[in-house]
């Protein structure tokens, strides 16, 4: 049997970073194929190449055995490829029906027909969304249904699902699997990406594992040992990945009581003690980052109390939070953590300008000395402090962000996705840093989507689901299963 779509020896680089090296992958009709690997292993790049968003530097994409070059996402879609994104970005102002057909409507739009067809598709998928309602306000699960309806409407034969279940409850995920199986039975080829091994075993026939951009193995899932699969993804035992540490938590440094923000999160209470790392786990969209932002005061809150070192913080005042000894390393360092146009030293000294100024005038030499101290201590690999911060690799940028806040000697450090998108070596260094900080008495609240990181680093794990805390687990009680169960609301 011939594969519907095949990648042969595909390589892709972004600047100096080799995202993919010689990746081959064949998708057969009727098959659900899993693509596994850690964050940063190159899965997203594979998705973008199949979806026509990017062209490979080397190697070829074959469709029905013939080499093709996709001239953009439009071309890929015309040839029967559909990508369901993790967080579908649809058109909030358009109706649900129009979201299904936009980009592929006939020149003269047949509104009634479009509405009828969309209702049929939603019905077939078992989710009766009102075709006339605007997409604004739809849940992520419903938005995915729209994406799938879109793929069905286009008669897509190759369907890529990029972590579709990351933000779904157990029930919603099951619904998605039913749809996926149905598609495969009708002769489509599916590429399924997930971090959850259970799902991969439940749904998929074969798996391809990527590690650091290179293919590790492709094989049948039946008979494949779970631990062997994890080892092939990680490339070493999980235990070795994280610094071992002994924690002797002191008094409470950060206390949060009944924190609520209407429609975002509710009744969040948690405590982080000196010397302790508390992991805040949950699915994308469960409200973790929003809680962190409200604690820090970037966002307001409707109810609740935040105390740092026993002192109550005013709501919505990040400056007061910083003065009280709170520091936050945000999720998206490019958007929120760094100012890309500025040099490394300027970025590093930004929150501490007062300490390097005399009568409000910044002393360059002191600024540089401060930056020098921290980049050295954190082992940032750089050419010159005056270089733009964007010349650094992701991991080193992250260290600059950390250093920027550590320079203020915080009592409480909130880190949101501290190792997202950085390579494995830098990850270890960041983990080591966080451990050292905790050992020196800093209270660390760490938000992370990577289960191994949460499990390997945290003394306690607090799990959120749809804006509420669903579990608080000690290190001994926190396992992949217990955290996932709480993160999906217990329904599975």
């Amino acid at each position, binding site marked *: 049997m011939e594969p519907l779509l095949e990648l042969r020896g595909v390589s892709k680089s972004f600047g100096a970073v080799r995202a993919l090296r010689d990746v081959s992958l064949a998708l057969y009709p009727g098959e659900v194929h899993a693509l596994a690997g850690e964050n940063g292993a190159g899965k997203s790049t594979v998705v973008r190449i199949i979806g026509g968003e990017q062209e490979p530097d080397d190697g070829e994409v074959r469709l029905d055995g013939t080499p093709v070059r996709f001239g953009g*996402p439009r071309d890929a879609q015309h040839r029967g490829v559909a990508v369901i994104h993790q967080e579908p970005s649809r058109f909030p102002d358009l109706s649900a029906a129009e979201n299904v057909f936009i*980009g592929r409507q006939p020149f003269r739009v047949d509104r009634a027909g479009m509405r009828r067809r969309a209702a049929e598709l939603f019905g077939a998928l078992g989710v009766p969304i009102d075709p006339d*309602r605007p997409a604004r306000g739809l849940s992520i699960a419903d938005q995915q249904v729209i994406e799938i309806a879109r793929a069905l409407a286009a008669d897509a034969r190759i369907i890529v699902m990029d972590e579709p279940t990351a933000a779904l409850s157990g029930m919603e995920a099951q619904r998605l699997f039913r749809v996926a199986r149905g598609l495969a039975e009708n002769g489509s080829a599916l590429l399924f990406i997930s971090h959850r091994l259970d799902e991969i075993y439940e749904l998929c026939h074969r798996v391809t594992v990527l590690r650091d951009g290179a293919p590790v193995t492709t094989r049948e899932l039946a008979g494949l040992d779970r631990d062997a699969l994890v080892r092939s993804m990680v490339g070493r035992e999980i235990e070795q990945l994280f610094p071992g540490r002994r924690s002797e938590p002191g008094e409470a440094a950060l206390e949060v009581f009944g924190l609520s923000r209407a429609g975002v999160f509710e009744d969040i209470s948690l405590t982080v003690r000196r010397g302790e790392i508390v992991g805040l786990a949950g699915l994308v969209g469960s409200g973790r980052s929003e809680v962190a932002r409200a604690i820090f005061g970037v966002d307001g809150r409707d109810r609740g109390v935040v105390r740092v070192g026993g002192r109550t913080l005013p709501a919505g005042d990040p400056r007061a939070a910083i003065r009280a000894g709170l520091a936050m390393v945000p999720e998206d360092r490019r958007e929120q953590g760094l100012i890309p146009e500025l040099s490394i030293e300027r970025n590093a000294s930004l929150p501490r300008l007062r300490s390097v100024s005399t009568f409000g005038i910044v002393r360059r030499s002191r600024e540089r000395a401060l930056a020098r101290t921290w980049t050295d201590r954190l082992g940032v690999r750089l050419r010159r402090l005056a270089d733009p911060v964007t010349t650094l690799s992701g991991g080193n940028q992250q260290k600059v962000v950390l250093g920027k806040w550590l320079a203020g000697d915080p009592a409480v450090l909130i880190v949101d996705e501290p190792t997202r998108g950085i390579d494995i070596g830098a990850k270890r260094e960041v983990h080591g840093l966080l451990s050292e900080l905790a050992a020196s008495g800093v209270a660390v609240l760490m938000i992370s989507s990577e289960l191994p990181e949460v499990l390997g680093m945290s003394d306690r794990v607090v799990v959120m689901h749809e804006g509420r805390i669903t579990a608080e687990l000690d290190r001994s009680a926190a396992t992949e299963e217990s955290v996932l169960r709480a993160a999906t609301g217990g329904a599975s």
Partner: protein
Amino acid sequence: MRALAGRELGIVLVLVAVVTVTTVVNPNFLSRQGVHDLFLNSSIIALLAVGQAILVITRNIDLSVGSVLGLSAFLSGQLYLADRDMPVIVVLLAGIALGAVCGVVNGALVAVAKVPALVVTLGTLYVFRGLDYAWASATGVHQVNADRMSPDFLAFGNGSLLFLPNLTVITLLVLGVAAYALRAFRPGRELYAIGSNPDAARLSGIPVGRRVFVAFVISGALAGLGGVLHASYFGTINASVGSGRELAVVAAVVVGGVAIFGGSGTVVGAALGALLLTTITSALPILGVPAFWQRAVDGAALLLAISLDRVVMLRVAARLRRRTSVGGAGG
């Protein structure tokens, strides 16, 4: 869709209120001549607002429309200086073509060179106006008076079809075509998608660059048409015709309910916005408000409209969140 219909209804209600109050103070306001003047005065602004709305729906903006209008009006004058018997249709087509060329420049810079529309059209606002002045100074023509234009042309600009001024008829025709095209044809629907989420539009296979480019050409062409209409109506033109009009046009579009960040709104709303602002401007002197308050009132209407949009949007969003589909949340 219902929210949009609500917005247009809202403008009509405010319009009725303004007209009623003003008519009570001065019954002549609603005379046949008064209504005729209202339509006439708002026609050109409404025409430009239609083009502007198409652009704003795609999350773009065209600040150069005032300059394009001026350039095209000046071209009309120059054409009559060259040949007093120039047929009206030739002048119309020339003006539209000139506007379209200006739109091509804007569109290429935005869609191909990827420069933000605000910056591009702020630049071309000055460049096109500069060309206008340069042209005037190079030819030594600083003003063209009505006696140099053909009587046909002036009759065209000041004539009426049945009860409606010709200018209004043209604006209504353009409005009708644009409203229908945005509703019922694929490229029109895709303009909304582009404004609603540009990245998703690209991923959905919509030729974003091409659509935005065409929207700029349409806006330019309508501004060009507006310039010719201006010349034929006023009969006297100079190189500074249309200065500052872009702001009135943008105000009309926003008051008309087109979201400034794209994705929603209608050309009918934009045209009604133009009619409302023009009516308010005409009503103020009758109501005894000194003329120098007019700008402030325009601005206040704009701020009011934007605040209203914000409130309505938050409410709608909250309502939609509550209306989750069956089988939504799991645990």
